[in-house]
């Protein structure tokens, strides 16, 4: 397996994600400059957290036109591998129309940085199959624009297709509709999540729950059946 962590101007979780993939899991991983368009060799492409282009205009609005993002539709269409957007990466994927909906300002108007509880709503995906259905996990969030919004018919479709993967549990920190924290697309190969799994991948930093997401992708697409 070979992974890429994309580096945009303003990415700041790229090295943390690289560390988890390369040093903790031993995956061959490249830091991929945002001007690259050849994605052929990668089984996993991570768009990391940060503030690409300073979040100017809207978070992700400028990065979505970066060459590497423009190359993603073909990569996805061919079913070449997994695309994972974390935080700013999720915002970029929604802006690019590769995931439905949008991420807008937190209800509190504040940047929120803390560990939250999440419920696993679908564990039959490459990203979540090492979790139990309904399991409560802990991951940190760190965002000012994380309130997930989508038109009613999109939400119905997300629910019907079980595209909602993680929801905020007990407390909804940002006002996301349906408590949504992570979703996948209709192909089941594109993932977006506001929480940061790379920041809780070792017991030193908490429960270590984040590591299992990356391990899940590494172990292949085997999904455990839904209850």
């Amino acid at each position, binding site marked *: 397996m070979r992974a890429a962590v994309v580096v945009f101007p303003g990415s700041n979780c790229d090295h943390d994600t690289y560390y988890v993939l390369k040093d903790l899991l031993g995956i061959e991983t490249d830091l991929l400059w945002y001007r690259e368009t050849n994605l052929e060799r990668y089984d996993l492409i991570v768009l990391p957290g940060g503030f690409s282009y300073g979040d100017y205009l809207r978070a992700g*609005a400028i990065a979505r036109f970066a060459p590497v993002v423009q190359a993603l539709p073909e990569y996805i269409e061919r079913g070449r591998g997994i695309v994972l957007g974390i935080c700013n990466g999720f915002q970029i994927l929604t802006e690019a129309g590769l995931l439905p909906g*949008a991420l807008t300002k937190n209800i509190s108007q504040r940047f929120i940085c803390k560990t939250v509880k999440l419920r696993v709503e679908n564990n039959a995906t490459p990203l979540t199959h090492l979790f139990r259905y309904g399991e409560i996990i802990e991951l940190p969030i760190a965002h000012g624009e994380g309130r997930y919004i989508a038109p009613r018919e999109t939400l119905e479709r997300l629910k019907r297709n079980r595209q909602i993967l993680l929801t905020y549990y007990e407390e909804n920190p940002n*006002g996301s509709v349906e408590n949504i924290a992570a979703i996948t697309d209709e192909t089941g190969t594109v993932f977006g999540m506001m929480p940061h799994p790379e920041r809780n991948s070792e017991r030193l930093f908490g429960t270590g729950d984040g590591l299992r997401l990356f391990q899940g992708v590494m172990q292949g697409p085997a999904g455990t059946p839904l209850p």
Partner: protein
Amino acid sequence: MKEFLVRVLVEPKPELLDPQGQAVERAMIELGLKNISGTRVGKLIKFRLKAISAQQARERVSEIAQKFLANPVIEKYSIELEELE
């Protein structure tokens, strides 16, 4: 070629909760401005554009507004054109 001053106004869609607008409205009331409601905070993007006609200018601005300046899931936009001498 004519030259136009373009103003694209982007604002949150009416059905979308705008916490920024609410916070600004509360502050305006505390500062003594009475009888206000419905405050929304958006953005203004202003630039000059050369085009053959106002119609062509408007078409080109609409295209970039839909594609880039506004996110149609959460925002709506309006365009103002002013011909420069």
